[in-house]
């Protein structure tokens, strides 16, 4: 079933999506129609978290969300986490901590960690179990999560302004 053109607001910009099928996932539309391949395609059934994006600030697997259902909402992808040429606190922390190896899980994990830090009470120190649970929907096959947990700790400090 074909929809008329609809508009998706992604990373602060309106994108017209012409000739799309209503059944297309947000992941597919981002990657193949809008030229935003930063969100990844590792399982496409909501198990690995590689496709994680924020819709109105809420973390979702974009493979499980219909693109048409995101009309009128604010979608943030890895490409929109920081202004061009800059790094967000979580991005900086991942590089610094050695949390990136192959990097395929990285965009999804960054979206998950960014959401976690946004949702923490101000000045809150993220408890190890809370962090582990928050990222347990994101599979990483390279790192064993050790450096990712370290990156979360660094990013939390950066966001609280405890380090620069």
């Amino acid at each position, binding site marked *: 079933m074909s929809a008329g053109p609809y508009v998706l607001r992604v990373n602060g910009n309106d994108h017209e999506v012409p000739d799309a099928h209503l059944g297309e996932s947000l992941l597919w539309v981002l990657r193949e129609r809008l030229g935003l391949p930063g969100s990844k395609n590792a399982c496409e059934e909501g198990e690995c978290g590689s496709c994680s994006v924020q819709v109105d600030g809420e973390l979702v697997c974009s493979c499980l969300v219909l693109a048409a259902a995101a009309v009128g909402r604010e979608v943030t992808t890895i490409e929109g986490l920081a202004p061009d040429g800059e790094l967000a606190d979580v991005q900086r922390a991942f590089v610094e901590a*050695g949390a990136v190896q192959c990097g395929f899980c990285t965009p999804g994990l960054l979206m998950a960690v960014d959401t976690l830090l946004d949702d923490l009470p101000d000045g809150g120190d993220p408890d190890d179990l809370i962090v582990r649970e928050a990222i347990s929907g994101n599979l990483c096959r390279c790192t064993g999560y050790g450096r990712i947990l370290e990156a979360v700790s660094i990013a939390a400090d950066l966001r609280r302004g405890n380090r620069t």
Partner: protein
Amino acid sequence: MTDVRTEEPRTVQGAPRIGESAPRPDGIPKVNGSFAFSSDLWHDRMLWGGTLRSPHPSARIRSIDIGPAVAVTGVHAVLTSADVPGSPTYGLEHADQPVLASDVVRYEGEPVAIVAADHPDAVRRALDAIVVDYEVTTPLVDPGLAESSDPIHPDGNLIRRIHLRHGNQEVVGDVVVEGTYEVGMQDQAFLGPESGLAVPAEDGGVELFIATQWLHADRDQVAACLGLEPGLVRLTLAGVGGAFGAREDLSLHAHLCLLALHTHRPVKMVYSREESFHGHVHRHPARMWYRHHADRAGNLVRVEARLLLDGGAYASSSGAVIANATCFAAGPYRVPSADIEGVVVRTNNPPCGAMRGFGSVQACIGHEAQMDRLAAALGMDPVELRLRNVLATGDRLPTGQVITGTAPVAEVLRTCVDHPSAASLSGDPMSLPGGAGRTADPAHVRRGEAVALGFKNLMFSEGFDDSSSAICRLEGGVATVTCACAEVGQGFVTLAQQITREVLGVEEVVLAPAATATVGSAGSTSASRQSWMSGGAVQAACEEVRVRLLTSVADDRGVDPDELVLVEGRVVSLSGDFEADLASVTAEAIEAEVEFRHAPTSPLDENGQGDAHVSFAFSAHRAIVDVDCDLGLVKVVELTTSQDVGRLLNPLQAIGQIEGGAAQGVGLAVMEEVLVLDGRIRNASFTDYLVPTALDMPPVEIAALIEQPEPGAPFGAKGIGEPPSISSTAAVVAAIRAATELNLTHVPVRPTDIALAGA
């Protein structure tokens, strides 16, 4: 060649060198979403490709009717085996696997036909429309019956048998323990699915952008299948979303090129996760029988073993995997007498091949269980027993080979067990077995602790002519390094920059794309070999540039080249009377290409004897687990490890390898198994094939990284990728045995193995 530095790494101004935690050059593109993985590629006028796979593990193909598929709107090509112009088969060691099945299918998921169309939906419709008439036959699924069954392939059902005999065969120990063990099939479960883009070239050749572990081996196999000269098939590495052995064999490479050459259009293909489970080789399932003999003091006197690996339908690298399993079956211990038979057979199960640890993982599960069993029979502490028998430099392996390199096995074990544990009993139900399910009664949870030792060869073995090539070009003070080493996440790109800075004293190091057209083979990113091999090639190429530069400057200035050094972007004379900016003295480029080789090895003889291996790396893990014996659930509480690294080139990357490898070991110990029933994979998804999450992984405490520089290794460094996934599994399983007091013989340990054991 060897430049072993043993002093503490100095702090350099500017860009980090060897021994420092240099940041990844691809780190920023990977965190901002701009890094192009193979599934992200796009080309103008691009078509999408897809693969029709056999639904049967064993069948004869009576006919294939592509007519209805060709008629589907948007379809540009439907190809079968008849359209393969060159060799109909390919393979890493033996070309025994069809590009597309013609008369017979030998495993569920074997490719039968391929399609190119203008949209993935059209591809799916076309694949559904192909009519294949199969005559289903009974699959051979029991590896134990393979040799006595009718051959399922013209090459027969035995892929390789090695019968290793060492020392006096009449020896019998005072204490003898026997055990049988089973290891399930593990999936590499890299996150980036198989994908690539093939672009037809004007010269009749094809460009293939692909995620792989070994570009040149792929090129040669693809070119043979296409019937083209290798030079007409040009591969460039696309972003690799993990590998772990699963990208050593061809998957969609030849299919993409066939479709692109047939349609004269660029073609992209991306496997789904389910297809990926069928589209690459797995870790071999193993059945192992062991008998260990010791004297009353605990000295090993003889090891007997029978190892049977299920190779699945095609050979892949099975021959090398069984060689490792056989050579290392007894573990890192002195064994004066051995009789070890390793067999790998063909069945109608999914093909198996390379995965991190490559034969040593299965063997370690066996030999470490046996060492614990022997300790119990002797009434000895398991660590004491191991320390009494560990290998050291100068000792012989059961292959007769004397270890000439470093072998700090005792140090690795001692530091690991002496490291204090930080594990406490958690009151949070999330930390108990069952986790978020909150099923555990803390009063019923039992804790267990155990250690395991493991080891493995570095680089390829048995006389393989192993090499890597690199080009270094120094111009205007900037070094450009070209090497076809596949960066799969391990961080070779970081090391290549560090090595170049170390040798040339430059700040800026540009890495050219890894490709077949610009440089010779780097060999495979596997066998923990790239730091040594491609690291060695980069070092040697840079060294040649350094010598030529200093010679040329010395000639110009009329000084002795030995008086000149490269320091932080300058050429400086030791006497202090001369200094020049590197950019100015390299206005004219200096370029060197080097093909680097390790010391040669020998094949194994008919008794499995020979100097077959280059070097060895050792590791120990201590595991602490909590077990809910009622439900059979396990929580791995803590892992502690020590590893023999030769020399640390990049501490942060080393930690990443050690933690990541341990996670794959934990997965194999408690949750990861490709379930194959009657030749069919029952859990080809991340919903049903579980890999550890952040909640499943314990902290990994690194007790010690033992730095004893390895003679012959560039910078003295040993590869570090594989040991972490070898001894970790054995340690976790042993800790579960300790907690449950059960004789657990199947790996992974399943909840039913524990919960129903007492029933």
